């Protein structure tokens, strides 16, 4: 066997000492890539465009190829809900158990959720232009509630950066996260509660009102994007863990250095005090 091949195999088997990867994340990452390639084939090749012919007038209507955007828009919206629900669960656990693990989980999921919520808004806007003839509709309740959800969790992430004490940061940001999470059921139900104030249709997937392959592509897309969410979430969680460890290690080193310097400091401080005092004739 050539030496280069042996070396490559040894390197591949060695643990990843310079990152947040593990065997599980590498397998999941490979599955995500294969899943995404399959989804692209489904979305662009195997599924048909949305076309309906009126039998009386022979006029063809539908979304045509723009329907292929829904194979990305719908899954990223589902991942957004999932990510912010995980954040909400983390926030509850922080307030209940005062847990660093859950605080890290909440923060990691919120960051990934903000990415997917932004993508939901962008892909929805791109789909809306050819179908609704508008990039953005200020009066649409689902658009507005989703935008508010996005902004609240951007605020949640920004608020976390303003505090350095981990305990205070965890508790205060958990309250903000829970306030944001209240918006999740409002976003989901908005098309039913205010059905006259939205361009969005009510749920058709839950009642299976779509074609078989389209339905399969939607559900498959949802699965692939949820796998991507898990992969991103695990890496982001481990980064949070590393940040915590680095903070703790840095604090421990600083305390040790300070303790080592303490006698010199005290000696210097006493010397300074002596020199600044008026001569009282008392030998201290």
């Amino acid at each position, binding site marked *: 066997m050539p030496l280069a091949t042996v070396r490559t195999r040894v390197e591949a088997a060695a*643990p990843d000492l310079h990152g947040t990867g*593990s065997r599980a994340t590498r397998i999941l990452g490979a599955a995500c890539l294969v899943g995404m390639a399959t989804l692209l084939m489904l979305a662009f090749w195997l599924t048909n*465009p949305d076309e309906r012919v009126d039998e009386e007038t022979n006029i063809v209507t539908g979304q045509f*190829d*723009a329907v292929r955007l829904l194979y*990305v828009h719908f899954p990223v919206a589902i991942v957004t809900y999932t990510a912010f629900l995980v954040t909400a669960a983390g926030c509850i656990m922080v307030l209940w158990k005062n847990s660093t693990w859950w605080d890290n989980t909440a923060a990691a999921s919120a960051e990934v959720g903000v990415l997917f919520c932004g993508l939901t808004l962008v892909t929805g806007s791109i789909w809306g232009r050819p179908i609704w003839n508008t990039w953005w509709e200020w009066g649409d309740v689902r658009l507005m509630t989703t935008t508010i959800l996005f902004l609240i969790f951007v605020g949640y992430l920004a608020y976390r950066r303003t505090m350095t004490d981990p305990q205070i940061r965890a508790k205060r940001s958990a309250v903000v996260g829970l306030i944001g999470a209240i918006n999740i059921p409002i976003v989901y139900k908005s098309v039913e509660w205010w059905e006259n104030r939205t361009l969005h249709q009510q749920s058709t997937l839950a009642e299976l009102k779509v074609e078989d392959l389209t339905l399969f592509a939607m559900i498959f897309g949802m699965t692939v994007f949820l796998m991507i969410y898990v992969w991103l979430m695990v*890496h982001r969680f481990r*980064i949070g*863990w590393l940040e915590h460890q680095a903070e703790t*290690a840095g604090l421990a080193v600083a305390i040790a250095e300070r303790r080592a310097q303490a006698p010199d400091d005290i000696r210097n401080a006493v010397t300074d005090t002596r020199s600044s005092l008026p001569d009282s004739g008392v030998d201290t």
Partner: protein
Amino acid sequence: MTHLGYLIAGWGISLGAIALYAGSLMRRSKVLSARVPVERRRWISTDD
């Protein structure tokens, strides 16, 4: 294929943003890993 520009924009922005974010996570993880000893990274095992 109709609406090709919209399709490329929608899918391209989505996959591009996810790839960029994944890349930024990898970069952050490498920088932070250098500051934390291996024994404190509990997802690393010799079976890996």
